[in-house]
């Protein structure tokens, strides 16, 4: 029995209550355990990624029932990569929080652990309703983190965030109801199989149910016009929390990829129909444009970073929506990069805010502040990564997407290009330019422009710990750049695995039920 699969969920699920129960009055122990569990999760993620690299799909039948009766965890390359990414990010956030923001309110570390539990569960589960449960876990943990530290604007933004997501949860349940009501199952693989066998008279209901799921994942992934929760939330959350939320949108992206690659491959299983129609590409375009407009027109650094996050989702969604293996591979690369980059951006902005007393992140000239040079350099590098200029992974990611859009990536399964790729090229490149202009403006304003009258700021918060956290994320991006070759190989194989869902189906249901080759 391969217990490795449950650990990414179990570890935080044990550590978190422990922190809340026993250690909540002992900061040192809390921090030690929190960091320790993060480190273990990173190692675990690495191990699982290595384990999955053999191309086999591993399953873990909770309660020994096995699908479709019981709940099944499924580990394939994509899930493993997402676990590793989540842990990597989580470690960075945990380290950064040591610089004091975990003391702004109670239960920061338990909530962080719960958040990771929810994320890991969402990545591992092979059951639709269980996915809902883990969505709720990661959401409620995120509600807590969102309002961590309090403040009028933050709590209001938090309320909006909660309310929008509660509506989302209702939609999720209705969609689930429809799907169960037609296919009579909740197991993803089983659903993928049954979806192809339902009576024609039921297909409309099934498709509506799928549509509602798409909508929910779309809300998570902040597809315009379902994105409205994102700017306010990111811009008002505490720095490290906003950084952690960089992964939240990716959960939606992951769910989209997962569900639709499973249903893909057979015309009758009209779920893939959603992608055949290529709507997501244009949703991505809209997202990219709205996000870029936001970057240029932002009034504060955090707002700008939020919209940068939105824009990166746009690029990612274009790649996912194109739905070719080559694009899938590029999408995974860019997903990882953008998560790390946006998170690092929020962290460095938080460092700025804590030094510009009285000015916060408002885009106005403020006095020179402590460690200005170092922070400016860091901001510069991260901004470059976010915009997607060389030399960091952002550039490679965008190149991968661009060339895959035109169907000229040699690697992977190849696959043709996407209709209208010249337009998509145009959009991606022009938005990159606008983002460049936006960040050039804010950067020069914050770091170069000085009001003549005011004296230099003297506030000198800790620099080492935050820099370690940011450095960790940066180091990962550098690694992504240097090892782009091996990485893209892995992702090509990942995309290949996703586009041949038979393996997944057989692993969860067994040869017979999976119903032959699709």
């Amino acid at each position, binding site marked *: 029995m391969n217990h490795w699969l449950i650990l990414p969920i179990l570890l935080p699920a044990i550590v978190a209550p422990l922190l809340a129960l026993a250690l909540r009055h002992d900061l040192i122990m809390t921090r030690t355990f929190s960091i320790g569990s993060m480190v273990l999760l990173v190692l675990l993620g690495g191990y699982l990624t290595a384990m999955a690299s053999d191309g086999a799909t591993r399953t873990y039948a909770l309660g020994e*029932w096995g699908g479709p009766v019981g709940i099944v965890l499924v580990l394939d390359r994509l899930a493993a990569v997402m676990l590793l990414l989540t842990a990597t990010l989580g470690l960075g956030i945990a380290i950064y929080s040591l610089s004091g923001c975990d003391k702004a309110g109670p239960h920061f570390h338990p909530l962080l652990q719960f958040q990771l539990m929810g994320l890991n569960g969402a990545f591992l589960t092979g059951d639709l309703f269980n996915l809902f449960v883990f969505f709720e876990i990661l959401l409620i943990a995120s509600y807590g983190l969102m309002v961590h530290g309090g403040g009028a604007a933050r709590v209001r933004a938090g309320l909006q965030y909660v309310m929008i997501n509660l509506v989302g949860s209702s939609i999720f349940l209705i969609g689930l109801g429809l799907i169960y009501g037609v296919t009579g199952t909740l197991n993803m693989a089983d659903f993928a199989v049954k979806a192809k066998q339902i009576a024609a008279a039921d297909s409309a209901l099934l498709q509506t149910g799928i549509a509602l799921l798409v909508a929910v994942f779309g809300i998570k992934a902040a597809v315009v016009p379902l994105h409205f929760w994102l700017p306010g939330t990111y811009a008002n959350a505490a720095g490290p929390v906003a950084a952690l939320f960089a992964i939240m949108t990716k959960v939606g992206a992951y769910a989209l990829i997962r569900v639709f690659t499973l249903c893909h491959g057979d015309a009758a299983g009209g779920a893939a129909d959603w992608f055949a129609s290529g709507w997501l590409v244009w949703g991505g375009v809209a997202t990219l444009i709205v996000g870029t407009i936001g970057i240029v027109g932002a009034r504060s650094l955090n707002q700008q970073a939020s919209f940068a996050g939105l824009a990166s989702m746009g690029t990612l969604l274009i790649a996912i929506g194109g739905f070719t293996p080559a694009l899938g591979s590029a999408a995974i690369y860019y997903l990882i990069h953008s998560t790390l980059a946006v998170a690092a951006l929020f962290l460095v902005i938080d460092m700025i805010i804590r030094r510009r007393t009285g000015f916060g992140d408002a885009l106005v000239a403020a006095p020179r502040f402590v460690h200005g040079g170092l922070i400016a350099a860091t901001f510069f590098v991260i901004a470059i990564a976010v915009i997607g200029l060389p030399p960091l992974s952002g550039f490679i990611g965008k190149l991968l997407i661009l060339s895959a859009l035109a169907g000229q990536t040699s690697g992977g399964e190849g696959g043709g290009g996407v209709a209208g790729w010249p337009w998509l090229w145009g959009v991606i490149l022009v938005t990159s330019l606008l983002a460049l202009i936006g960040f050039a403006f804010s950067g020069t304003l914050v770091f170069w422009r000085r009001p003549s009258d005011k004296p230099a700021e003297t506030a000198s918060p800790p620099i080492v710990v935050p820099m370690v956290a940011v450095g960790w994320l940066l180091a990962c991006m550098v690694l992504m750049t240097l090892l782009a070759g091996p990485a893209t190989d892995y992702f090509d194989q990942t995309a290949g695995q996703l586009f041949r869902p038979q393996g997944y189906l057989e692993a969860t249901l067994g040869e017979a039920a999976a119903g032959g080759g699709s």
Partner: protein
Amino acid sequence: MSLLLIVLLPFLGAVLPALMIRSGRDACAISAASINLLALVLLLTHAPAVFRGESPRVLWRWVEPLGLNLSLHIDGLGLLFAALILGIGLLVVIYSRFYLGRGEAVGNFYTYLLLFQGAMVGIVLSNNVLLLLVFWELTSLASFLLIGFWGHTSQGRQGARMALAVTGSGGLALIAGMLLVGRVVGSYELTEILASGDTLRQSPQYRWALGLILIGCFTKSAQFPFHFWLPHAMAAPTPVSAYLHSATMVKAGVFLLARMWPVMSGTQEWFDIVTSVGLITMLIGAVIALFQEDLKGLLAYSTVSHLGLMTMLLGISTPMAAAGCVLHIINHAAFKASLFMNAGIIDHETGTRDLGRLGGLLKWMPITAGLAMIAAASMAGLPPMGGFLSKEWMLEEAAHTKLWGADWTLPLLVTVAAIFSFAYSLRYVRGVFFGPRRDDSTTPHDPKAGLWLAPAVLAALAIAFGLFPEAMLGEVVRTTTRGLVGGAEPKFELALWHGPNMALAMSLFAVVLGSLAIVAYRPVRRVWRQIPLPEGRAIFDWALRLLSGTTRAINELLHGGSLRLYLTTMLTAVLAMGGWAFYRHEFGRGMRPLLEVGWVEGAVWGLLMIACGLVVVFHRQRLVAVVAIGAIGLVVSLAFVRLSAPDLAITQIAVEVVTLILMLLALYFLPKRLRAEQEPGGGLGRALVSIACGLTVGWLGFATMTRDFESIAGEYWRRSLPEGGGANVVNVIIVDFRGFDTYGEIMVLGIAALIIFGLISGMMRGQLRGALARWTSGESYSPSRHPLLMVVVTRLMLPLSLIVAAYLFVRGHQMPGGGFIAALVVSIALIMQYMASGFGWAEDQISFDYHALIGGGALVAGATGIAAMALGHPFLTSGFGHFHLPLLGDVELASAMAFDLGVFLTVVGGVMLALAQLSNLGECTRDGATKSEPMDYPHTSGQGGTSREGRD
């Protein structure tokens, strides 16, 4: 290998100066210089091979599927440019040491400089166009930092941003162009691209690729209409202007034109566009330069003009013209860099670069003047300077090239350009060193050798190139041209004197008219000022203002923070998606027979309708709303009873009670009467969306309910009792089949409780505590807060309900009940104590730590699962049937029950923590002075208290 080292050295070395900031200017300068020198030496070791006609190359695979490889090579063209970059770089490093003042961040300066140098070398040595793109963008970024070196000045910031925006946009166009090229050729390796010129020129994408690549080159090399950024980049320290904006970076565009020359040139499009753009740029630059008042401005526009010249020569597409371009690149690098440094010296010594305030410096600064005259002469194209050769060459080429369908246009226009370029060169010398001194405030003098050494070297070269062209440049130009045209270079000998020819005549003509222009400068300038011209800078700024204005407006419009707008949009979108999916697929009505309706159901249903109506209409009277909600909850649980869902019914009713208590507690703090909503359009849209949602969901529900289907339920029926050990299938599902869901669900409850705790305890600290203490509900409540009867009843109820709970808990696995319901019953009983007997009293009696309950519960549930793992089964495997003990019947449910116990604990803990905190909050307000004895006496409160609404 050493090729890679040449590129890497500056990047690695860039760290040194940054580290040495503390150790002073010399340390920084020396470290930078030595790195630079090392790279130069390494480069020169390759020279012999290149002159022999070989082109060494190295290749490391990087991103296979993309075709992006770390592949470098060096040929004539690359060698020349690399030599320029590193050679002039060295001079600039030395010059900067003496130019920059003590206060400046010299360390950063050299770091940026080396970064730029590395990127630049990378461009010229790349053998993979994607790699070239990487370095290309890096030069833009590095130049952004260098131009913004004095970022505290607004010119510095604007110049930097403008340069970045223009060259950056070019870079992005270039990306698209190169990707297209790769698409056609099937590889990004330069050598392969160069080999497949015909394929490219004939492909339908040629025009697109050409256009995009040209945009890249023109923006970088400040060609018309992108020329306007270069003069503004002069806000940079002068060494930067000398290095980036005359000698190297702006030549990157020319370099790329030259690099692509073999594959792209020769077509009509290439000739027309490149030649014309070059020519126009050359003219405009020269003309504007003449009327500049700022020395660096004059030099900047002259640079624009000379870059135009080079572009034009490449456009002409003959090998000879290309050779001329190469020659001019060398000469221009020498004299222009020298002149910039010269202007720097003048600025440094006199404190101004304004031609209006300079003059007569000859006798004060003889050396500077001498150097300036040599360099300027070369710029003006006078013999015996190097500039003369290349200008003659250019005129010669122009003289017999046909442009715009006439063979006189090109010769004529280049002559005009030559006139102006002679004129502004003359003006520089005359304006600075001759005539009266206009500004006597300072007594300028020649600087230390350190400062004039670099320009002196370059000036010397400028003469040497002219006097011994063949010896100094002959081989270089031929080798470079060979690399440029890719193959057989034209045969030629460099010589100062070609005898009387067309070109010479044009030069003489230019000199004469140019001198006249200077003699009659003022009237000429008056004429010039009459001409209205569009100013590139103004247009650029206008565009930026427009951009930021519109984007801000859109942001405010879309993300102004109105939740109603957000939700309306989102719901509409979701409805649209659902509808789209529904109508694109086949739908058949369900055939399942309907259940008949008795009058009871009808009545209950009516109650529900009324309740809903009440809520919607009277939702602003909060108590009505709460009561209606209660009614609705009741109806729902009745429905569950009727529709064979006992567990749901019990749970629903229990949850209902707790929720209502919570709502009442929360209401106590929320404003007493809700202000009316603003209803744009009378709330019509709002109503429409709501009704649409209602109808959709209702219809979907009906459609589902009325059709038969196959579900996995059968499995559960068969296996529940034998394998799950429970008759109550729902409960078996909850704690066993899908126990993992329940595990997650109690986590959610626990987390919610923790957050609530955090939120409220946060309110009882910090500035909120004050607000809380001042706060009063502003209403008077029943004077007897803890009525005797209620106290007694609740006390009696407590043990009773505990027993009920225990019963529910135990039987849960067989009949309706279970841990969750039991927990709610217990919680309700406890809450009763709080409500009846007061917070303080209850707190004293009930001494649980609710945190411990939550954490403990979660851990117990987890431990149950892990126990199974210890026994070698998956997480949460039910203990049933796994312990082979004699009295199996008793312990068969052990593990499932333990799990349920975990649920129980967490739920009690969660609910109680939340409620206790809320009532705790009440105690912190003015109304709530803690009453510890159970039956206290009337206590009137709050009348005079300023309510919170009053203050805000």
